[in-house]
């Protein structure tokens, strides 16, 4: 049951990264692929209706983590108090920036809020990357599972490396989304930028993977699947993404990028299991799912409810997306000059 709970939490966080990831990515790459105020407006509009809905995945994952692993919820968020508050503020600030730029038309006003939006989104990706890096590497924990280190501890080279990978990965994800949703010169620039970014992404992925073997030996416990299979699948997803970019098939390229992100997060989750918080230095235990879970009855009650709820969400979301899909393309074409 607790394994199922672990999978549910990991899957919901993956959905968060896949969905909010593209709008964070678009925000970060917007200065690279847009040249005029109009082009930037189109880029911002492409994510305008979606960002708050995407953040619902994060909020829902928070509630689910609370129900399934209350101890981990308590330890993680109180332990990483300051970094976590920074994440919250940046999430709010980028929302404010995007809405402010969308609703008023003065050029100076828009330039300022666009810059603020891009910068806060970029910083968020860095913080998320640092968080994942530290989750894999492990952090100093006391006997109850509470974090005992400092902010400075979290900014170690490995975590910063993961942050760089996160930035590059979501930049690609955002570029794929832009190719899909807007047309004209920015779409072409997104395509070219993505192709130029691709070798860097592959190199960073390989470097971070090798570094992971060094800082977290647990990965060897996963055997062939952990050491060979996951990296091969991740590289295959990257290769497919590149092929689809070259063929100009934006939707498929976006799916390729999504698959790559999913592989990264599956690898991270598999490395951590059965721990929710790994202790530093590596090999000294941590907070396991069994120590963090509530009573068996509570778990047996809520897991079916969550699974049924998510199934309903998937059903109506895919229904809505299908109904809305065809004509989104029309309105995108209608926007070209």
């Amino acid at each position: 049951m607790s394994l199922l709970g672990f999978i549910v939490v990991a899957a919901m966080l993956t959905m968060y990264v896949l969905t909010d990831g593209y709008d964070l990515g678009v925000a970060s790459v917007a200065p690279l692929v847009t040249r005029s105020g109009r082009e930037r407006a189109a880029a911002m509009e492409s994510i305008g209706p979606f960002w708050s809905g995407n953040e619902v995945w994060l909020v829902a994952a928070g509630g689910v983590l609370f129900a399934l692993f209350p101890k981990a919820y308590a330890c993680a968020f109180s332990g990483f108090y300051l970094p976590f508050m920074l994440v919250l503020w940046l999430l709010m600030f980028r929302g404010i920036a995007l809405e402010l730029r969308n609703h008023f038309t003065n050029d100076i006003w828009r330039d300022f809020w666009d810059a603020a939006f891009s910068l806060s989104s970029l910083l968020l990706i860095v913080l998320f990357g640092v968080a994942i890096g530290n989750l894999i590497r492990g952090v100093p924990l006391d006997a109850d599972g509470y974090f005992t280190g400092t902010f400075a501890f979290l900014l170690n080279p490995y975590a910063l490396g993961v942050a760089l990978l996160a930035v590059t990965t979501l930049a690609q994800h955002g570029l794929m989304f832009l190719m899909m949703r807007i047309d004209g010169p920015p779409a072409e620039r997104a395509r070219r930028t993505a192709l130029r970014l691709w070798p860097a992404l592959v190199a960073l992925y390989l470097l971070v993977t090798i570094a992971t073997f060094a800082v977290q030996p647990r990965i060897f416990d996963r055997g062939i699947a952990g050491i060979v299979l996951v990296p091969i699948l991740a590289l295959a997803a990257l290769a497919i993404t590149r092929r689809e970019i070259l063929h100009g098939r934006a939707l498929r390229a976006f799916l390729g990028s999504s698959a790559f992100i999913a592989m990264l997060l599956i690898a991270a989750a598999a490395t951590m299991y059965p721990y929710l918080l790994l202790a530093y230095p590596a090999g000294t235990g941590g907070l396991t799912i069994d120590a963090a879970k509530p009573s068996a009855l509570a778990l047996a009650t809520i897991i079916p409810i969550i699974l049924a709820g998510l199934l309903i969400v998937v059903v109506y979301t895919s229904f809505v997306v299908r109904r809305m899909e065809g004509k989104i393309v029309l309105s995108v074409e209608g926007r070209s000059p």
Partner: protein
Amino acid sequence: MDFAVADRLQFAFTIMFHYLFPIGTMGLAPFIAWWVVKAWRTGDAHADRAAMFWTKIFSVNFAAGVVTGIPMEFQFGTNWAPFSAKTGSVIGQPLAMEGVYAFFLESVFLGILLAGRRRVSPALYAASAIAVWLGSWLSGFFIVATDAWMQHPVGYALGPHGTIELKSLAAVLLSPFAWWQYLHVMTAAILAGALILTGTGAWYLLDRREGEYARRFLRIGLIVGLVASLAVIFPTGDRNSADVTKYQPVKLAAMEGLFHSEQHAALAIIGMPDTRHQELIDPIFVPSILSYLAYGNFDANVKGLSAYARTEWPPVELTYYAYHVMVGLGTIFVALMLLGVFLLRQGSLFRARWFLWALLLATPFPYVANEAGWVVTEVGRQPWIVYGLIRTTDAASTNVAAGETIFTLIGFLGMYFLIGALFLLLTLREIGIGPSGGHGASSTYEASPAEADA
């Protein structure tokens, strides 16, 4: 400063600010659904535009609600870690259900309302408006169920290491305490929605524009508002008080400013509590009414604060004033709505500028009443975080210092100032454009390319 005090300050500020937006979404959603369905069934073009207009204002509320809701979802963990670790088995359940069952429903179908008018069938569009309504009200239910459990814990068993373990989710979700509290909160939200409508309608008539829409807003707002203002008091408020009398008698004594146990207890209409001398300063009493309201019997003995140890008292002044502000405003709303419906039936409402002014100025007060109601509930619950089980002082994170919490509180103050200013700007701008403006644009986002081109 004591760290638990800092945590309480921060929670009070962030939750009270956040709650401003759910009032708007929960209060406006039923009206939007009504107009969308009406436009679909009758082809009424005005209903259609009214729905679009309020959907835009709804979406501003929704976005501000999501943004300020994210800290709420995590604050139990950041600032109240021992509480979360001990009670997660129970209160994690409604919170997880809120995430999975309510948030997605509201956000996905709001997407259709905002951007799908020309893309989906009218039937699906109408269904989406109902789904958004359902989502916002479900969200309210799960939150109130969580709070009601903290007021009157049921369906649990004490576990090892002082944890509280779930015994029956059905008992938690079907608790009569939760349902009466929920109905009270929802009728109060509808009342707020109705007063937002009448305030906006009054503004347009005073400004001599949008006449057709203004009259519609006033008509529906006054009729629904009258029913809601009565239902807030009876039966929902009354049943809520009965539960408080039964399960939280100290809170009742603080709400009423009753220091000494009395038979024929008098109801204080006004007066300022003096906790040192244990009396009300300059009070106006109605004799024996409190005994009747609490127990249905003028002779009943109502226990005063002095019957309990000081350590069991909630902060008396705050509880007392919040309760009196809520009840006072609730009474004024009934009078206002009665008068409005009377003028409406008489046919002179739309010309009665003095009354339109009154409706316009009344718009912020349902917010005050709603917030005051929550202050009564939560401050009155002190010194417990889970009534009778866990004290608030034992629930705050020991690994987060007061200094850290104050630092982040200051950060939230700054951030929320921006959000508040933005919210007002966007809402007032939509009201400025008005329901008949923005021709052909079905959402803010579809409207903006034209702006960019201009």
